């Protein structure tokens, strides 16, 4: 930090009583060492998660007799293990996309309501109320989704199956559209679960819209909605994208709500495009079989599925992070 040209450096023995006390160089070294250590530990932990999952999944994958990525079979014990994640991937991604399609528009609208429309006396309690949605444990969402909310959605499913059944994703699927335990219901419940995440982050960016942008638009005679469209939404767009990504990440990895609501399918059931169908996500597959981790081979297969889920959420979260970083670079 400092360059020194001086030669006259006599004994720096200080004179006053305070100055003669320890200047804490040792303490500084210990404390900064501890904090760097903690930071490094976090990095190491994330790397270890990847490393452990990879090293223990690889032996099982090597013995796998079908393509791990394209097969939907799941036989993990015995001499000839055959397992693949195609089916899990489909259910995981489709249910999460349903959740995003529903939660992002509603979440953005709620965030706009909280930042632009709500009267001041309402804005804070209203925001607190939405945040409470995040405090409900996912297992309670599962219980509620299966027993209370799902039955209400069944008529909706039947309506879609009856009038839009010609679209493959809305196909009645042998009457499963009358069942609660479908991908569709899971998607809607996931949407409610990620709504507070999408809302909270969108609210944060909308609230940061520079006053000058808003006043600029209003001074042109824009209505409130036009002001939002010209000033607030463009400013908040990267924030909304990364909010959507974070919500997606949460939906992809959600376990208990999915496990409780979704019906598992009998092995060998052929794949259909319909949303009115059972199935398993990565997370629910692992949770459903958690009691059966006994041989390394079996466990390895589930760890492999967990690894794919980890990578999936890693990518989605990294995108969210990069988008928001870009925005920071812009606004600073």
């Amino acid at each position: 930090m400092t360059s020194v040209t001086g030669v006259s450096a006599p004994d720096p023995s200080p004179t006053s009583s305070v100055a003669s006390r320890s200047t804490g160089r040792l303490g500084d070294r210990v404390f900064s060492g501890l904090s760097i250590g903690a930071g490094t530990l976090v990095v190491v932990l994330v790397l270890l998660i990847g490393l452990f999952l990879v090293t223990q999944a690889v032996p099982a994958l090597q013995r796998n007799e079908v393509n791990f990525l394209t097969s939907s079979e799941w036989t993990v014990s015995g001499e000839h293990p055959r397992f693949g994640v195609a089916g899990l991937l489909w259910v995981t991604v489709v249910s999460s996309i349903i959740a995003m399609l529903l939660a992002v528009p509603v979440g953005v609208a709620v965030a706009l309501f909280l930042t632009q429309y709500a009267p001041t006396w309402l804005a804070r309690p209203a925001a607190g109320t939405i945040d409470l949605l995040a405090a409900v444990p996912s297992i309670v969402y599962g219980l509620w989704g299966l027993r209370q909310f799902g039955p209400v959605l069944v008529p909706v499913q039947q309506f879609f199956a009856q009038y839009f059944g010609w679209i493959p994703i809305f196909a009645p699927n042998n009457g499963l559209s009358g069942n609660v335990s479908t991908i569709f219901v899971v998607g809607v419940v996931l949407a409610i679960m990620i709504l507070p995440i999408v809302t909270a982050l969108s609210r944060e960016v909308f609230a940061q819209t520079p006053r000058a942008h808003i006043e600029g638009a209003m001074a042109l005679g824009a209505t409130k909605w036009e002001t939002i469209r010209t000033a607030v939404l463009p400013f908040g767009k990267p924030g909304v994208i990364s909010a959507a990504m974070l919500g997606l990440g949460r939906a992809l990895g959600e376990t208990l709500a999915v496990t409780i609501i979704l019906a598992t399918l009998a092995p060998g059931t052929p794949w259909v495009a319909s949303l009115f169908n059972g199935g398993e996500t990565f997370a629910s597959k692992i949770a459903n079989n958690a009691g059966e981790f006994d041989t390394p081979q079996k466990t390895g297969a589930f760890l492999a599925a967990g690894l794919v889920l980890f990578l999936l959420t890693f990518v989605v979260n990294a995108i969210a992070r990069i988008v928001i970083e870009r925005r920071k670079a812009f606004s600073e």
Partner: protein
Amino acid sequence: MAKRIDVQDLDIYYGKFKAVEGVSMRIEPRSVTAFIGPSGCGKSTVLRTLNRMHEVIPGASVDGQVLLDDKDLYAKDMDPVAVRRTIGMVFQRPNPFPTMSIFDNVAAGLRLNGVKNRKVLSETVERSLKGANLWNEVKDRLDKPGAGLSGGQQQRLCIARAIAVSPEVLLMDEPCSALDPISTLAIEDLIHEIKEKYTIVIVTHNMQQAARVSDRTAFFNLAATGKPGKLIEIDDTQKMFNRPSEKATEDYISGRFG
């Protein structure tokens, strides 16, 4: 107490940017030296190098010498923490510690440096608060939060806090710029009183203030935006305000600057 400061060929950098160039000056003990000049000329930067607060900012560095009674503050074996104990500082905005009472604020410097003796602490607190002309106003509420005082009282509290560790030198970075005229007057009176004991350097934007409180005045200026700031001249305040040697100083002081 009270030591002389010699600055020799000081260059100050923020990263690669040279903020101040070639400053050499002598600051006399038991006197008040004022730094004046337009904003951005580096006078606060120079002030902060005198107790090595400058290097708290990432990427900042200096080249040259700052001698405190012939001891180089930037010598390799000189600990910046020790330097700051010897040279105290008062900031532009009063910044008492919000979690601490008035007593604890003044005692903070001693306590954080390991003094535990209750008697020593309370004696020092009383002496410092008296020294800062604040004792009579706060002696009945020493256990109340320091943040509850008025702005001027807070600034005097900060001065008390700074002198509690018995520094040799007291640096003041625009100590009155956030205060009302009456509080400013109180601080200026205080400066007059404590210059008997300390070497005081004060940065100020207010030329009347420089004229009122200082014995010597240093004028800093920069040639153009993006160029490093320079010390134009330093002299007795009387002379600087009446017949400065440099044209630039005269222009600035008479308001014909720029």
